[in-house]
């Protein structure tokens, strides 16, 4: 199915001083060269209306659970005045027209989908509506201004005439596409802002939603890959006779990143891989250990790093006044999406089709084409539903995609490459481990006069094509976000960074740098509150004067959680507030200890993410963020010993389970501001809120995640 796609690029404007993004865009017009006649009306790359009235919205984002396929459909349907019951969607092919308006490539991440695509989708829907009105007005010989649209039809009230969009599609398709049309005022919205059932729910409940792992092709082989045990390992010698002898095994291939066993199904591939004997050169990563890294990081934290942010004279402030110091540590984290990484490749002599749950279409497509040795135009990347992304499926190295293409090259048959859970956990591209050393000076009145934060850890951006954009003067902005841009009013601040070079591949992980900086900042602030005998809420209020959106969520969460009332017997509350991805979230957790282990009873969240498109999605993302973040606060860590990842499945990379999930109350601050991120901002404040509650409960301060029993004893 072809679409009218233009080759115009979206314009891009850099971030404003307030941290928001201004996006200028143009909805692409029809191409200059005529395309074959279609029975459908497709005025732009984002919508298609069929003769029977069905509306298909083209979603240029990866649906990984954040509900974007519904939100963007709502936005377009609103302006289109569509009949919501006739709305469907598909995932976009790879094309420059689908590039992220801010980042210039087709991708999903940074909690920017709603923010970036709301206006373009509104325009896309509005343009289609305008053309349908024009078509109807011409057909009836009436002024356009006398026509109205609702529920997927154009009406002319004066004469009682009415035509569904399907009836008008062919006529509208013959019209020139206007360059921009007025949008509906918010006061007239019928869909946007209303809780709307998601379009993908039924398929996911019935089991018919297609993830890439579900794609089957005739003659397809399944590949399981033996990866080197270290990150710098390569196969030196392969003995595969026993593997090949397994019935159903078709071939064994060294593709560099590992040794693939190709078979007629997962099970023979797995049995074959079990029988593979590979001698590995382990490389320099063979001596890696988490313990050694921790020592090394601790030592580096004592030395001055590259300055990421400086205000006033922190040394002077720390020389006067009362000083508190602390070290905070967090481990490597795997993304561990429920659908382990996998990819289906159908590679032929002069064409290639790939199915993947990609968050990084432009990059993955280019990498696949290069690996296949084909021009990009001959390679099609089909984006399926993602069984979880969290950033893992947006890899500048396109690791699993390239591996699958290489296997397909050797296979001479369609290939489904599946990583087992163990493969997925051990394949790297983790949220880095971090060490933070903080020091703060307070005066007699309890005001913070100085704040120093030294951060030690790897750069996720170094060595990627994003380096020129995101590393400035040696500072990877993602390493210090949430720390170098503190909202708190502190006159003397120094944030410095040691970027370490460790042969562990790293990557963004849901909330990126905020996943470690918020833990440090919000925990240490609580330490200061305790040391100066201030209520944690009062201290924050004091330091956030004028930061209305942060104060707004803070006060709302405090009020709704009963912060100023005593907690029930045996329980304590902890508080944290953190801005990220242009949104503002405050969290209060109510916690007790059960047999020495934290039990979170209730989570109260307040969020300001601007205008909400689908309130149900906002609530769901925050509920989910609480559980996601509690998993890492309580359980998850990737650790290394002798160069190898120690964890292998969910028994040792533990997840929070249903019986441990608190009740969650989400309160959304009503806002007319442009929509901002919601996929990630719920994560950062949760771990510090938990640790702050535990301090009130036990008097023990947690400075290292995941929490260990002995930390609370």
């Amino acid at each position: 199915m072809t679409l009218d796609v233009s080759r115009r690029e979206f314009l891009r404007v850099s971030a404003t001083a307030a941290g928001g993004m201004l996006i200028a865009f143009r909805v692409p017009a029809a191409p200059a060269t005529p395309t074959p006649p279609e029975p459908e009306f497709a005025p732009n790359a984002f919508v298609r209306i069929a003769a029977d009235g069905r509306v298909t919205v083209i979603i240029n984002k990866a649906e990984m659970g954040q509900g974007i396929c519904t939100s963007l459909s709502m936005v377009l349907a609103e302006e289109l005045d569509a009949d919501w019951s006739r709305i469907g969607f598909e995932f976009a092919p790879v094309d420059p027209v689908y590039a992220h308006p801010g980042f210039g490539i087709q991708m999903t991440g940074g909690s920017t989908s709603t923010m970036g695509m709301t206006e373009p989708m509104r325009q896309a829907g509005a343009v289609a509506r305008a053309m349908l009105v024009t078509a109807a007005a011409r057909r009836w010989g009436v002024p356009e201004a006398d026509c109205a649209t609702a529920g997927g039809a154009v009406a002319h009230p004066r004469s009682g005439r009415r035509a569904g969009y399907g009836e008008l599609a062919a006529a509208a398709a013959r019209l020139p596409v206007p360059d921009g049309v007025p949008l509906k005022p918010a006061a007239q919205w019928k869909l946007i802002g209303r809780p709307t059932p998601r379009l993908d729910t039924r398929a996911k409940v019935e089991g018919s939603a297609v993830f890439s792992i579900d794609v089957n092709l005739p003659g397809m082989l399944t590949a399981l890959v033996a990866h080197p045990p270290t990150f710098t390992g390569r196969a030196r010698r392969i003995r595969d006779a026993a593997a090949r002898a397994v019935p159903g095994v078709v071939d064994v291939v060294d593709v560099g990143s590992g040794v693939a066993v190709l078979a007629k199904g997962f099970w023979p591939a797995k049995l074959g891989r079990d029988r593979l004997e590979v001698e590995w050169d382990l490389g320099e990563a063979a001596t890696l250990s988490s313990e050694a890294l921790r020592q090394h990081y601790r030592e580096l934290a004592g030395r001055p790093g590259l300055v990421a942010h400086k205000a006033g004279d922190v040394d002077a402030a720390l020389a006067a006044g009362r000083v508190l110091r602390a070290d905070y540590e967090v481990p490597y984290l795997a993304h561990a999406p429920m659908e382990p990484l996998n990819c289906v490749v159908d590679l032929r002599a002069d064409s290639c089709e790939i199915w993947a749950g990609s968050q990084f279409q432009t990059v993955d497509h280019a990498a696949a084409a290069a690996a296949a040795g084909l021009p990009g135009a001959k390679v099609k990347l089909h984006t399926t539903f993602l069984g979880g992304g969290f950033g893992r499926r947006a890899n500048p190295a396109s690791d699993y995609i390239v591996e699958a293409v290489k296997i397909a090259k050797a296979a001479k048959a369609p290939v489904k490459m599946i990583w087992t859970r163990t493969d997925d956990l051990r394949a790297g591209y983790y949220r880095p481990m971090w060490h933070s050393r903080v020091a703060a000076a307070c005066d007699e009145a309890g005001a913070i006069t100085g704040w120093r934060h030294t951060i030690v850890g790897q750069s996720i951006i170094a060595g990627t094509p994003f380096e020129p954009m995101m590393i400035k003067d040696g500072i990877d902005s993602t390493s210090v976000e949430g720390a170098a841009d503190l909202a708190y009013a502190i006159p003397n601040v120094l944030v410095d960074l040691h970027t370490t070079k460790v042969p562990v591949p790293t990557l963004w992980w849901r909330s990126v740098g905020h996943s470690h900086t918020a833990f440090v900042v919000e925990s240490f602030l609580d330490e200061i509150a305790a040391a100066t005998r201030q209520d944690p809420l009062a201290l924050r209020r004091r330091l956030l004067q004028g930061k209305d959106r942060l104060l707004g969520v803070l006060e709302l969460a405090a009020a709704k959680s009963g912060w100023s009332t005593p907690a029930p017997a045996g329980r304590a509350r902890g508080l944290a507030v953190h801005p990220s991805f242009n949104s503002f979230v405050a969290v209060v957790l109510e916690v007790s200890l059960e047999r020495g282990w934290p039990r979170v009873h209730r989570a109260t969240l307040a969020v300001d993410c601007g205008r909400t498109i689908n309130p149900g999605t906002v609530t769901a993302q925050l509920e989910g963020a609480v559980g996601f973040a509690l998993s890492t606060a309580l359980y998850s860590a990737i650790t290394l010993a002798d160069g190898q990842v120690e964890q292998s499945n969910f028994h040792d990379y533990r997840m929070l389970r249903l019986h441990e999930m608190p009740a969650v109350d989400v309160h959304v601050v009503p806002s007319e501001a442009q929509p901002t991120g919601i996929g990630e901002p719920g994560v950062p404040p949760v771990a510090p809120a938990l640790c702050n509650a535990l301090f009130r409960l036990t008097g023990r301060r947690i400075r290292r995640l995941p929490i260990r029993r002995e930390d609370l004893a």
Partner: protein
Amino acid sequence: MITLEVNGRSVVVDVDPGTPLLWVLRENLQLMGTKYGCGAAQCGSCTVHVDGNAVRSCVLPVSAAAGKKVTTIEGLTEPSGAALKQAWIELDVPQCGYCQTGQIMSAAILLRQKRQPSDADIDACMGGNVCRCATYVRIRGAIHRAAALARGGAR
């Protein structure tokens, strides 16, 4: 050759008898609703019913299902199963959705045994089903809702 009944249909599959039922369902029978999440009975995404009992199909050799009745999400048509699906849709439970069929199959066992499950019953039933998106709040709510629907005779 192994004969078993899947969703009411008798099937004969020619596979290594040690092949986990999960892969027979997905690869030989093209029933893709049952998912692979861990291969070690640690996540519950592969949950099916065998002779009415919940089983993690990723560790059940297909030989152990020979001659038995297997039900997957595609064949969950009993009233409590329909109530669960309806409740799941009403509450918009799924986010990424990958674990959800396994969640529903586990919950179906609970509703068969308890008309009005308590929160403690839900805790006891669902601990084997991981949701990385942490839709747990809505899973709990949907189980309560499904139980109410089933008691009220809703379709």
